[in-house]
Every structure is written in C-alpha cells, then in structure tokens.
C-alpha cells in the first residue's frame, strides 16, 4: 500500500509545476484557543466577503463579525485581537469546527491570518476536505487531549506546540507527545506538497475508459 501511495505521489510531484501547496513536514508555532463548539464557516468568513474572485486578503476578514463591532472597531475581547494572538500558527478549536457552508474561503481566510493547523475533536467533512486541499492541517485529537490543550492554552498565552506530520505527533511544551490520525493518502500528499488536480489529469486514460464502458 505504501508503495502504491508513494508511487502515486511521485507521479503527482513530477508534474505539479504549478502546484501552489508547500510541502508540510513539521513546524513549531504559537498556539491559541477558541473553544466554541460548532463554529460554522459563516463565522470564519461572513458571506458578504465571498464576492471576491481571488484568494487574496481574506486573512483580514477572518472571523470578521466576532473581531469587529458594527462600526468596524476591533472587539478587544475577541481572541484574534488579543496581543498574544499575533503570530499564532496553530488554533485549538471547539468540536465540529467548520460546519455549515462549503466555502473554501474559510481555510483561505484562516491561512491568510497565518494558521497552519487547526486542532479539534472533530471537523465538518467539507471544511476538512477543503483544508487538506490547501495544506491547512486539520488535527483530530481525543476529548481528553483536547481539554488538556485548552487548559494549557488558558494557562500559557505563549503556548507553543510542535507538529510533526511524518510521525503524526503533536509535542506539548513538557515534551509529551500525542499522536493524531490522518489517512495515508492525505499524509503523503501533504508531505510532498502534491497536487491532486495534476494527479487526476494524469488519469485521463482510465477516465476515458470508464466513460466508454459506461456510456457517459
């Protein structure tokens, strides 16, 4: 299986000249927490900002309605406006993060702010897919670990976590390591920065054969 995956990724890698996704191996980053459950993508980026026709600048409007009041002034109580949030790259989020709309603008906006990974007990399906396509790592941990991470983030505003995708581990400041699951295909693709569109383009013969055989 490993071989098949490696082979697939190699193919993708070879042809992915236009690939925009940087490979992810490991990184250490400032970690902040937003414990709200069921955060929907309308909160992550309100619909009125979906009139853009590219991906630029969306970091400025991530969580806009929680971040700014009606007059457009920053809400000092909101996480992203707190001084310690500057430079954060990892977000510990509540259960079922990213539910609701399929807008890929949500991961684009989170990445625009600087996030590289989101940690939760569960992600909504479409949000998780969209995140993986953009190299925003959705890390699923169990409830106990999640609670510990939330507590740590409360205690230490400068919490740093280390993510290692190869070994699928999160390393806490005390050196404790927590494993997280990720399917092998997504992992290989992220590690190599591969391009799924390029991969599918290479399947032209198989797709044509399917169309012929099925009268499509």
């Amino acid at each position, binding site marked *: *299986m*490993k071989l*098949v*995956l490696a082979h*697939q990724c190699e193919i993708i890698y070879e042809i992915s000249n*236009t690939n925009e996704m940087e490979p992810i191996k490991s990184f250490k980053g400032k970690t902040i927490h937003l*414990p*709200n*459950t*069921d955060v*929907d993508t*309308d*909160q992550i980026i*309100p*619909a*009125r900002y*979906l*009139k*853009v*026709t*590219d*991906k630029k600048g969306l970091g400025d409007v991530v969580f806009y*309605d929680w971040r700014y009041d*009606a007059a457009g002034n920053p809400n000092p109580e909101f996480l992203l406006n707190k001084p310690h949030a500057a430079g954060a790259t990892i977000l510990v989020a*509540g*259960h*079922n993060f990213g*539910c*609701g*709309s*399929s*807008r*890929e603008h949500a991961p684009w906006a989170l990445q625009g702010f600087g996030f590289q990974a989101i940690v939760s007990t*569960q992600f*909504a*399906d*479409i949000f998780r*897919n*969209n995140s993986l*396509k*953009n190299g925003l790592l959705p890390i699923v941990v169990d409830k106990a670990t999640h609670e510990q991470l939330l507590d740590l983030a409360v205690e230490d505003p400068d919490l740093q976590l280390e993510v290692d995708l190869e070994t699928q581990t999160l390393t806490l400041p005390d050196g404790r390591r927590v494993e997280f699951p990720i*399917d*092998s*295909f997504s992992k290989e693709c992220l590690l190599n920065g591969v391009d*799924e*569109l390029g*991969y*599918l*383009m290479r*399947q*032209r013969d*198989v*797709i044509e054969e*399917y*169309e012929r055989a*099925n009268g*499509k």
Partner: protein
Amino acid sequence: MNGTPKTLFEKIWDAHVVSQNEGAPAILYIDLQLVHEVTSPQAFTELRNRGIKVRRPDRTVATVDHSIPTYARSLPIQDALAAKQLDIMYANARDFDIRIYDRMSDKQGIVHVIGPELGLTQPGMTIVCGDSHTSTHGAFGTLAFGIGTSEAAMVLATQTLLQRKPKTMNVRVDGTLANGVTAKDIILALIAKIGVDGGTGHAVEYSGSAIRAQTMEGRMTICNMSIEGGARAGMIAPDETTFNYVAGREFAPKGAEWDAAVARWKQLPTDDDAHYDAVVELDANALEPMITYGNNPGMGIPITARVPDPDALGDVHQKAALQKALQYMDLQPGKSLLGHPVNVVFIGSCTNSRIGDLRLAANVMKGKRVAENVRVMVVPGSQQVKRQAEQEGLDKIFREAGAEWREAGCSMCIAMNGDQLAPGEYSVSTSNRNFEGRQGKGGRTFLASPLTAAATAVTGVVTDPRSVLS
C-alpha cells in the same frame, strides 16, 4: 439479485468508481456539476493558469443566484463587487463553453431549484456543486454533495473527484404528519435530535412511510438540510413520485430512452437486508411544527415547547454554546417563542422556495394583511417558479396582503445581495441556517416552515400555523 445486498448509496457509489487503489480515495465519476458565481471564479482561474479546458462542458451547467439582487431585473446591479462576480461568471461560461442561465434568463434560479426543474437532476446520478446544499438533489435518488472550489476545479478539469467512501445512515420516518406539519418540520426535528454533527461522515438515506408520502418538493426540503445535520449527502430512493416529477422535463430522457431509464432507476432502491452503519428513527405521528431558537439548525424545538435552559446541560462546551446563543438571540430559557415579535418574514431559499412552498404560504395569507411593521419577502426559487405562481395568482395574494414579491435568487438566506436583517432584528425564515449574522450582521433568525412563516407574517409574532389553518 447477485451478491451482497446493497443500499441505494452503495449502488450509485459503486457504479461511479473509476478506479480505487488500496489505501487511497476512490476516483469517483461525476455525472453533473452545477456551477454558480460565488464559489467558481478561483476554480476557473486554476484552469486558466494551467491551460486546461473543461473536460465535459455537456456535464456542466451554470447559473447565478447567490449575489444577484432580487429587485427588478430591468434595474442595474448597484453592488460593483456582485456585478463583477457576475461578469466573471459569464466570461468563464463563454470561454469554457458552458451552458449558463444568466440573470436575464427566464430559466434562471437557485441552482438547487433549477437542476430538478429542468430535468437535469435524474435518479442514479452523481451531482456536485460548490455549495453545501447540493444534498437537495438526493431527493431524486442521486448521490449529490457540496464541494469546495479546489474540488470544483478538479471536476471541471477531469469530471472526477478523489473521494473517500462515507458511511451510511438510514433515517426512518414512519407515520402520518398531522395537519400543519410539513417536510421542513421533519428535517428540523431530525437535526434537533441528532445534532449538527450527528451525520458527519455519513451519507443519509431517508425512508419510511412519511417520506414516501412526501411530494418531490417535500423530499427536496428534507434532503436539502442533510448538511445541517453534518451529513455528506441525503438521499431518497426513487419511486413513481420521482418518475412522475422528472417525466417530460426539458433534459429528461424521452421516448424509448425514458422507458430504459425508468427500468434502470427501478433497480436503485436499497435491497432488502442491506446494511447501514447507523439507523435513526423518527415518529412522524408525534411531530409538531418546529422552530429554532438558537444559532445552529440543531437548536430547534416544537413550536409549543419552551426555550431550553443552559443550566440543564452537563457538557461545559454545549452549555457555553447555548448561553452564547441565547445571549445573541436575546431570549430567556424556559420561555415559549410563541408570541415573540418579529421584524421580517422571509419565504424563500433552496430549502423552501418551490411552487408547493409558495402555495402553502399563499393559502395562509389569502385575504389577509401582513402585520404592521413587519416586512414580508417572498422570493421564488426560480423564474419558472415565479411564472407558475403568477399563473396561479399567488403573487396577487402576496401583494394584496402587503408582502414583497421579488425576483429569484438566494436572497436573505445568505444575505450577500443586500436583502438582509438590520442588527437586532428578528426574522422567521424558511431558509436553512440560523447562524449568527447569517441573514445580516446582528440579525436573529428563527427557522421554520412556510406555513409557520406565513402565519407569523399575518400576526407579526411567532405563530403556530395550526391556529390559523381551518
């Protein structure tokens, strides 16, 4: 029947797997991609950057719905960003040779209304769109689900997607709905029961006598909101109701092809003894009209029930979520929503904007006036629905009651186009999401059926539709 019994989902899935390597996601063939102006521009840009054509323009159909104004089509679009987005959609459709129902088309409408209406949506198909409510099309026994923009580009380029097979869930709804209880109430009751994450990772199949008894429009309402329960897709096995709806529509098969298609479609329903990974049951006899009180579609109650108390919840995060919601909605636990004043009633969206929905609402509003100080917007799901309603005189009923009769679009469901609540305002809305700010920053949404919305339009306060139905 050969081999292992299969579910409706498994039959469609298996028939669309182009290839499957162990440990990797399947390459799944997509029969139809629907495209709209908001989630597609970056996908077309990706194709342009790589010099790729749309592989199957004949399996790709576009319209504009999300950001277009619902005022008269003769008026120019005032929002420059929305206008630009439409221009880009039109340019992409032209350059990539894709059929488009533009703002001036007499077949334009919400993408999930026009697909079925034009006969593009047919049993056994796989359908995707950059929109989470694509699950609507599952009402026809299709596998239909929302995708992101990167995935939209993949389908444009290859007509396939890399997909992991979801698990299956059977939602059985048996019994008979009481007067005043509709398809919308079934799905709101289900989501209240399983929660907004209850269906995550699953393709849901709805079955049971209460589902069979639904019209195609009712079935679409139910499948539409599958995503609000977290499900990847929602589907209903095709039957005579389905075939009768599809027959004769513009893109439906005709003549001998129709007969062959129906014979194929009759093979789709789940085999006896097929296995589902999860089963949920709902008693239709016990259902009442539903209404939501909070900021996700799972925060719903029977309309005669009281707003729940956060202190009664054990889980600290659930408790915090409910507290936050009640604060945002400015509601008290233990109180009924009946009699709560509203500012706006919105009848529309891909959930409830079809002719059957408008008939239900018109029936309640006929010969009555909307309450003073309440804005009532009726937004048909498509221009075809609009014309049908006008032929039946429904527009007259709405206008004479003092409601606004508008052009087709997503309108105040997503509030991208200027149709929106002011901060602090309350709406009863037939749409699908009551998220904070969904209908306008600071706006507060009660989700309900067209019957409940119409009853509320007349009284100006949240009203049990059974109190106004004869």
